[in-house]
């Protein structure tokens, strides 16, 4: 390196990046800060208070929606994780034409825009005469989440490799036993991480829920949409902050749990299936 230029000294880049971070965080900061505003104003901070959180908690519809969102996310997490993990294992191990077809099928939800997923879910429920409700949202969420689990788990499967299962079989374990005794212990951190990821995605989901929700039990993001349509309200800041805490916690756990359980790999590597 002979000449000092804008290329080597990243000052312009640093400033630009800083500005972008500012751009990204300012709205978030506004939401969080004003959620503690004691006055209704969204322009002037007037002392700290929890009043908007109280408003949220004291509103039965909103409170219900929070629990509904959590329930939906939990059910989605459990079901999608089980099905998605099995799918990942099957796709990696089977070498049939059928499994190659299933692989393509699994990828389709990932590249489909949510609005399309929402509409098609709406159509099939309508066609089958199933009224929209809590359960239609759950079904739709699971459908969309399976592929995410499969992708995450599949990445981890690639790092684990097939030799340990072969070793177990060589030592007398049947195919199922080798999966249960050798593959699952090595795989579970990735499964948990995928599950928590799905939890966060489901909890935050709007478009899919919007098309498949019933009148009564609506997930929180759908309620927020109705509220926003009617105008700006400080309670939304409180809800948004709360939701952010839940989502960040879920993902933080997803990254930390593999670490906590004595694995050598970092959680990020487990999630992305990167090599050691």
């Amino acid at each position, binding site marked *: 390196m002979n000449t000092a*230029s804008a*290329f080597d000294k*990243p000052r312009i*880049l640093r400033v630009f*990046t800083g500005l*972008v*971070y500012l751009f*990204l*965080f*300012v*709205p*978030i900061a*506004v*939401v969080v800060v*004003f959620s503690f505003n004691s006055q209704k104003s969204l*322009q002037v901070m007037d002392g700290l208070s929890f009043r908007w959180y109280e408003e949220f908690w004291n509103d039965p519809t909103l409170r219900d929606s929070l629990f509904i969102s959590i329930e939906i996310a939990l059910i989605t997490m459990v079901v999608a994780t089980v*099905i998605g993990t*099995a*799918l990942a*294992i*099957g796709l990696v*191990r*089977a*070498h049939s034409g*059928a*499994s190659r077809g*299933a692989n393509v*099928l699994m990828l*389709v939800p*990932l*590249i489909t825009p*949510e*609005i*399309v*997923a929402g*509409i*098609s879910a*709406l159509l*099939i429920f309508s*066609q089958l005469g199933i009224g929209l409700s809590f359960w239609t949202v759950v079904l739709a969420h699971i*459908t*969309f989440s399976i592929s995410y689990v499969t*992708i995450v788990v599949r990445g981890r499967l690639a790092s684990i490799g*097939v030799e340990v299962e072969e070793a177990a079989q060589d030592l007398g374990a049947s*195919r*199922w036993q080798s999966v249960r005794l050798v593959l699952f212990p090595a795989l579970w951190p990735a499964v948990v991480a995928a599950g928590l990821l799905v939890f966060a995605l489901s909890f*935050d989901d*709007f*478009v899919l829920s919007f*098309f498949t929700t019933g009148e009564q039990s609506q997930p929180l*993001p759908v309620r*927020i949409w109705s509220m*926003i349509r009617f105008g*700006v309200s400080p309670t*939304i*800041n409180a809800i*948004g902050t709360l*939701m952010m805490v839940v*989502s*960040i916690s879920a993902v933080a756990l997803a990254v930390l749990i593999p670490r906590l359980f004595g694995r050598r790999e970092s959680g990020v590597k487990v999630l992305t299936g990167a090599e050691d």
Partner: protein
Amino acid sequence: MDPDLDRGQGLNASRFWNWFVAPGAIWIGLLFAVPLFLVLALSFGHVDDFGRGVYGFEWSNYQAVFDSTYVPVLVRSVSYALITVILCLLIGYPVAYFIARFGGKYRYVLIAALVIPFFVNYLVRTYAWVALLADEGLVNNWLIDLSLTDAPIQMINTPYAVIGGLVYGYIIFMILPLYGSIERMDRSVIEAGKDLYGSPFRTFIHVTLPATQPGILAGCVLVFLPAVGDFVSAQLLGGPDTYMVGNLIQDQFFAASNWPFGSALTVVMMLFLAIWMVIYLRRATRGEAEVL
């Protein structure tokens, strides 16, 4: 071990693993693939006297889609999405480059920090911009307080706000693949490029940019696809003049209650996106783009 050798794993191998694949494949097949065909089927139908969608064999919905009233909406959606992609690229590339090359040991912290805003619900994030950019909003108040303007500037309800909302909503999907691509790049190639091309700018154009092409393509696809169908930004930050195809579709399924027409719009949008998806996947399998 020859990687191309299929590890046969003995008798009945496929039959055993098929049990693992079946639940997921059946679920996605029944609750995702089949419904997509329903959308396609309904798009050829019409609305009966009660306002319900009925299956049929007519092209009228597709003719309506390309009617002069709706074509501007389609064109607008694509152009907004395109502008969004370009802006995301222009803004995102320097950031990704900075973190990847100059982040050092803070790289992961910087990336984590970058991702945090995206844990706030998309609606709430967009709503925050509404609060900021409204006529009575924070930005206008500051501008007036600083005497930069007398009256509030119209910021929401404009195409700029909608596109801004789209950029804000999806830029993370541009930055992450870019970061991945730049980080994976062999640094020594840049040094060699400096020797060869002399100026850092030319090195960037001829060496860095081509080397990060997979990340660029992935980012563009990951932003373009959802942006085309987005309706949240247009609804909250725009007005009737900034209607996108997503709003149009959403209307057909709720307010206007014309499901067949809505289906036709959806099919048209899907076909349009499918073309780019196929082009992208071709590139991905040829190693020119990141594989999802």
